[in-house]
């Protein structure tokens, strides 16, 4: 790449919008939607496969006592989650890793013919 172009692009990336009051007040949290890879009942955690393109990641979310686990609006025990469930999760960072605030089962990935990750 032309060095001058690259420099301009890098500098432009440093200009960031000032956060609004709402953004500043928001609690630190993140969210994802992905497929359950592991249901760990012993340590009460879910491992979720997610990513961008072919760059895949596994996020491990600890399930706390206050974590809301649901499917179609109803409570769902951790033991009823399965590998291949598609879940939407919100979570925050705590010492020792991520802790889930909410996990909602929204669909399912299947390997059968006709399967397709629909809710």
């Amino acid at each position, binding site marked *: 790449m032309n060095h001058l172009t690259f420099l301009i692009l890098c500098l432009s990336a440093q200009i960031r919008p000032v956060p609004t009051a709402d953004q500043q007040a928001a609690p630190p949290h993140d969210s994802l939607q992905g497929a359950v890879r592991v249901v760990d009942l012993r340590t009460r955690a879910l491992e979720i496969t997610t990513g961008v393109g072919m760059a895949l990641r596994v996020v491990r979310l600890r399930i706390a006592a206050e974590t809301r686990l649901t499917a179609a609006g109803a409570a769902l025990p951790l033991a009823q989650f399965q590998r291949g*469930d598609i879940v939407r999760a919100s979570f925050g960072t705590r010492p020792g890793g991520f802790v889930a605030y909410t996990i909602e089962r929204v669909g399912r990935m299947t390997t059968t013919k006709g399967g397709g*990750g629909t809710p």
Partner: protein
Amino acid sequence: MIRLGLCALALSLTVAACRKPPQPGDPLAGLTAQERDRFVHGRVVFDSAFTPATGLGPLFNAVGCGECHEDPKAGGTGDEVERHATAFHPAATGRACDELAAKGGPVFQLHVTPLLHAALGIDSEPVPPEATAIARRTTPAIFGFGLLDAVPDSVILSYADPDDRDHDGISGRPNRFFDGRLGRFGRKALVPTLREFNEGALIAEMGVTSPAIPTEETVAGQPLPAGTDPAPDPELPREATDLLDAFVRLLAPPEQKLTREARQGREVFERTGCARCHVPALRTGDSPVPALRHREVAAYTDLLLHDMGPELADICLGLATPSEFRTEPLMGVRLRSKFLHDGRATTLEQAIDLHAGEGAAARDRFRGLAAGERAALIAFLKTL
């Protein structure tokens, strides 16, 4: 008045005849000046070579997009072959595929920077012993991919027949990303959008972080050793990522040049059943880019997964089993010298001959053609 009209008609026909068809690497016709400008600037990002100081690695397959996508022009194919690995457990409860994402998969990079080599003593990312298959992957040409991105999901799903209800032996089905969205890019159609395909390639192929993926990959699941990644994240800023995406999105598909023999071959292509999966044309939907909006793209794919038989089988990915592959788009096939996902075929005849599973019937019909018809079909493919 009539003479004036005839002159205007002759002039417009001359202009149309003189319009140079897009060459590989050219932008789509009909772009605005601003879109062309972004295309030109995006090519600079595409052609740039990264170094460890500007973001390369620590794990990487290539130093820039253009190192692999180079033949015959930026956006084309290349000689490089990379390595993907996954674990497939068909008897497992739930999903059978493990993409080994927790161990650095499914793309296991072939090169490391000097700093990572010094820290770990490795020359490439190790494939974990849990892998049940290692696949070779050639570089796809990406001409016309912006048009593929603009095809609505509903169009792709209209070709799906997962349970083969029409009993033609072909049961295309969609792949899905992990969040449930329909996939279409990649040899197993895992990736839903071109934007994600590009952003994922930055990190998976070059080890370059971007606003979408601001952290480096692990080394086989282990965090990077301290001091091995000197460039601050994101290593490619938003504007440069956007320009890169614009370049790829606005690349024109190769122009088809039909000869008389090729026209005959096109008819043979339909008659042998190749077109059942290699659907000749898909129609795009709405798009913020007028040149991509409501256009017919001669993609020769249905963007669905098909079982290609055990000989071609390698890794799983998402819903795709080891033997399932997305129908390879044939647009631009004339520009390639190696065929199939791993480049094992060096001629189009070999590639057809290696079709099995859902492609077996069409392959057998190809084998049964008279020599002249086979030649016409190949001549047709060489116009795409």
